[in-house]
């Protein structure tokens, strides 16, 4: 069970307070209707599925109800940093 630092609450809390929100930093296209099926499909379905450094969203569902991002190593499950939505990670891997 992960121990997650919520950047809004500024506390480490148990994983069971959070829910996972999938890969972070995926911008919704500004003009979806102008996209081809393929491009829209890429946005909709395709994720990097990184081995190693991964930036992902978490939701402090039974805490402050805020979303934030985490940089997590998908191999070791180590969480290297958490940061607020709208800010950029300080730790990036080769693939990100």
């Amino acid at each position, binding site marked *: 069970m992960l*121990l997650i630092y919520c950047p809004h609450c500024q506390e480490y809390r*148990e994983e069971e307070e959070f829910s996972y929100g999938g890969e972070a930093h995926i911008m*919704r296209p500004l003009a979806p*209707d102008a996209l081809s099926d393929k491009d829209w499909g890429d946005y*909709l379905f395709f994720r990097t599925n990184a081995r190693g450094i991964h930036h992902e969203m978490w939701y402090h*569902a039974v805490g402050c109800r805020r979303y934030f991002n985490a940089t997590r190593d998908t191999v*070791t*499950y180590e*969480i290297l940093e958490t940061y607020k939505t*709208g800010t950029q990670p300080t730790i990036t891997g080769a693939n990100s």
Partner: protein
Amino acid sequence: MSQNRVASHTGAAIDFTFNGKAYQGIAGDTLASALLANGVDVVGRSFKYARPRGIFGHGAEEPNAIVQLGSGAGTVPNLKATQIELYQGLQASSVNGWPSVNFDLMGLIGAFGRLMPPGFYYKTFMYPKKLWMTYEHFIRKAAGLGATPVEADPDSYDKLNQHCDVLVAGAGPAGLVAAREAARTGARVIIADEQSQFGGSLLASKQQVDGIAAPLWVASLVAELMAYSNVQMLPRSTVFGYYDHNFLTILERRTDHLGAVSTCGTRQRLHRVRAAQVVLATGAFERPLVFAHNDIPGVMLASSVSTYVNRYGVAPGNKLVLFTTNDNAYQTALDWQGTGREVVAVIDSRRNPCGEIVAAVAAMGIEVIAGHGLIEAQGGKRVKRALVAPINEAGTQVTGAVRRLDCDLIACSGGWSPAVHLSSHTGAKPQWDENIVAFRPGNSKQQERSAGACRGTFDLQGCLSEGASAGADAALLSGYGDGSPQFPQIAVEEYIEEPQQALFLVPHTKPTSRAPSQFVDFQLDVSASGIELAVREGFESVEHIKRYTALGFGTDQGKLGNINGMAILANALDQTIAETGTTIFRPAYTPTTFGAIAGRDVNQLFDPERYTAVHRWHVEQGAKFEDVGQWKRPWYFPQQGETMQQAVDREGLAVRNSLGILDASTLGKIDIQGPDVAEFITRIYTNSYLKLAPGKCRYGVMLKEDGMIFDDGVCACLGDNHYLMFTTTGGAADVLAWLELWQQTEWPELQVYFTSVTDHWTTATVSGPNARRVMAKVCTDIDLSNEAFAFMDWRDGTVAGVKARVFRISFTGELSYEVNVPAHYGRHIWETLIAAGEEFNITPYGTETMHVLRAEKGFIIVGQDTDGSMTPADMNMDWVVGKNKAFSFIGKRSLQRSDTVRANRKQLVGLKTLNAKEVLPEGAQVVFDAEQKIPMAMQGHVTSSYFSASLGHSIALAVVKGGHDRLGQVVYCPLADGRSIAAEIVSSVFYDPKGERQHV
């Protein structure tokens, strides 16, 4: 005095039974030591060949003595006799062996052992495929893994969440001193050990520590630790899992040693510990030697023999032959000699053993036969003799004549394997070390360090100094102390040991494939020849070999056999052990009860239950309840002698003909405020809210970005910047998270704020032709006329003296008013409406009637008629999708994807059975031709199905491929019993197709 009890060892007598026979042990015994004291040789039968097996070890590594404890509801299967503390009246029986362990019919299979090589089940029983289930049933029964109780567990269990600075796993010498060093710094320490007493190997040691006998030294150290208020000591507690971010689980057995069922509180407790730092001091397992028929009762680990002698005062035999590859095991010869029983000889595989202890043993007049192997044990249900022969230096061949030694006990030692399990749980890969002939823990992946034997340090002095350093280091890294041990070095008497020999398979005069079975994994009957055969059949990976041969798959998880098995595999593959590697140890370290994992989260406490403010009234009326999410909702209100169908018929007709009342409080309600609310929810819903005026409501559908329906409900405009969104009962939390997601991560520039207000309001819905009349009786400050308060309007007002919001929305298709009042007034409003409606025969109805009424109208229920793969068009709800919205709302683009616009998608239709009384089962598959061969081409399925009392026939909603173009077509629903129900595809709106009744 039992036959094998050492005279000087006494204690209070304890009566127990094993396989129905009465025995006596003494206080301090384990079931295993008591059985050995009583001379019980055969304690079980092996898994595959049903060979007789005796007690082999003395702890968690025991592969053979697997027993069923107790009977009835409190019975526990698959416990190890070596870990069961004896209590008065204990009843135990072998888990396998029928009709008894001494005469096992299945033993017949053993005689044909050569016919059951590894992979036998796969090779033999897989064909014909159809019969596999039959074979498996027989195999499982024959295998005998114990019996689970069929009654509810009478015990209670609980969980404790804990934090600590330093967790020490294991209270042997290394763990104890580690805990002391950490405790001294003021760090919060938890030290746990699976045994009843702290001390580990020292409890069975004859060594002097700090000038006193080892057990006495342990007692003084334990007393010292108990004086620290910052130390929590957990005996009978197994650290069984090491998870991410230094989260560990400990199973504490609180009352198992007192009886089969607890009479004094919680039986077991699961500690869930988040530790800043961890010291692993879990010790090591002695490795058996793999020789022919090494599984005959009377063959044991050398350290186990010593433990039974020194700690329990039990000498499990008379004439001992010790077989070793190392100095360490010589202690067993000395210990045995101390009982006054005979040591026949020590067989040492090494050419020239010259350690201090070797000399000490020789000086006692014990014959040491060096450069020899014990190549075969002989005997039936007990060892009778050992065959001993000279072997070459590499230990691969017998080089001379075989000598027979009469004996009834063989103690063997192939060295020690560190218990690297917990370190492996963290992902650390064990590293092979030639010097100690064992795997050491791999590089730390978490905040942990190993100390003592589990790190491959086997001398006591080394264990003590490593433990002290580890404790001080862990304390420092958790913020306490200066990192250096503070207590003086402890003086220890011990022999300096010479190197051991690596010997994993003892040669026989015959090749492995022809020699009598040389067992590697006792519990699952994996032999050396089986592993070699697997290699000949092409297996190379240790993980594949494990699965093919079942090596390490038993309840002992290969604690004894794994290393020998891997070494034999490496040899067969002509690789080093390091190249071959080891399988991965995963939690749990030892079997853990489901009771402890469940804790108190059982029965009523399994999941929270949510009640509406009117709940008690429903209970008083005898309502039957249905679970909707965590809510308890009235399902139907049966009157005297009514069946469910009769109640639902009555309730539904009351709504259609006069008046019904529904507790709709459970619907999710989200209060949304802010200057950008209208823009925000217009991006979320498929239709537009930009022009919705205060006092108005609108029904909307939400899609996921893939275009599939996710939730639906009504949204009301309460004011210019204030909306109230209704969600489905089960979807409320997900919808709130969904709104937060888009606002926070995509459109933070929109000023919108969400508050869940589901529990704040009670919603009483009155529905039916007399709804306006009953409202007029309880509400005088709202003009209820259709002109002033139309369908899909809402009004503020006073109902029964309470400030209320009244919504004219309808899920029944009838004239309806949803009265919302603060939940505190819920029951008042409800009872006032019931009293006012009496003259109209107001009828409370539950979710079942609600479902029937809405299905008559073709209104969908998200999650029942949709399943996450349905678009609005599939549901025939294109009208709810705004075509001219400026913003590309969530999911809009996906409605143009090639897959969502293709023909032949499953579409919502009505089904009317040709036999009006026949109700289709929900979930039934729809086919176009009932006569076709199985497997039939499935064209859809029934999503909702009821008998409609209003219409006098059954109705169903279904999704059928291309259904919207198939009106009038007859389709079939084949059932499991072979029947097939014919139904006609009709419009999904069965009742009041023009929707006039809700507008009156």
